[in-house]
């Protein structure tokens, strides 16, 4: 049995127990999915304490709505869609950043720092810049990379057609590329460094 299959069976068993009145069985669900849900929330807001609050709220909504899970999709798929809905609603009410994308800070010049540190700082700036994208472009980016670059999974979580998600991803990438034109140069530098190490 694969890990995913085992987890799916455990989820089903725990859901049945919870629906039969065993509150403690919900602990198994939280234990298995706390990591993914907190990480997903983190990608939405980049604030650790808020990510945990959001994930907690998602678990509570899941607890309340467990009977509404129709078992047409896997439990994790249902849980992710529910969590995305909670995160989206909360971020609409209390946005994370008010900084427009054009005002996102530039990464500091790599030549002045140790290369690894500079690369790390540059990556952090790009990740934070995702938060400055308009929500309609931000969410596909967040969920696409959360689902390990699986467009179908991201589309299912957002309840949008795959074509729409692809179009929004493409637009989001274009916005980020325009904001960070040095990405191409960094990619070339990275490839050069890798070749040097191999050589």
């Amino acid at each position: 049995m694969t890990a995913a299959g085992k987890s799916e069976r455990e989820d089903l068993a725990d859901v049945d127990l919870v629906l039969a009145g065993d509150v403690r069985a919900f602990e198994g669900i939280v234990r298995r999915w706390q990591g993914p849900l907190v990480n997903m929330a983190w990608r939405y807001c980049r604030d650790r304490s808020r990510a945990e609050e959001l994930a907690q709220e998602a678990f509570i909504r899941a607890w309340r709505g467990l009977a509404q899970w129709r078992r047409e999709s896997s439990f994790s798929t249902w849980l992710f869609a529910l969590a995305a809905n909670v995160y989206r609603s909360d971020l609409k009410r209390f946005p994370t950043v008010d900084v427009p994308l054009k005002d996102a800070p530039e990464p500091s010049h790599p030549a002045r720092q140790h290369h690894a540190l500079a690369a790390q700082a540059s990556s952090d700036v790009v990740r934070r810049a995702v938060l400055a994208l308009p929500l309609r472009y931000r969410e596909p980016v967040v969920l696409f990379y959360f689902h390990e670059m699986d467009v179908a999974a991201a589309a299912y979580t957002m309840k949008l057609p795959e074509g729409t998600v692809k179009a929004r991803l493409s637009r989001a990438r274009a916005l980020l590329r325009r904001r960070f034109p040095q990405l191409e140069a960094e990619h070339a530098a990275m490839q050069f460094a890798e070749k040097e190490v191999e050589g």
Partner: protein
Amino acid sequence: MNDERRTNPGDMELDRILAAEEPLIPSSGFLASVMERVHEEAVAPAPIPFPWKRALPGMVFAVAVLGWGGFELARAGVAAMTTVPLTLPQISAAMIGPLQQTGWVAGALAVSLASWILSRRMVGRLG
């Protein structure tokens, strides 16, 4: 990666940065805190459902009385219209000031009510 393969170096760099995210470990108390809230929810009494069965006869009666009242009022109004000569009401100059003020107050109340209803609907739609 599905069919999302790219050749643009900028996109490839974006993929490298955004896909390589350090996983965040939930804090040690997270599980306990979620379960505490779940237990609170479990022991909380279920919300009392609205007693439709008891309220329905009263509501039907109230609607009927209001409807009957409205109908009678309209009928009396129509009857009065036929008997009273059509002349403009005579309002004394002393009454015009208070009437205007009452009109402004009524208008302000109506605007407040409309904005309150609108804001509630907007919050409901966003939330």
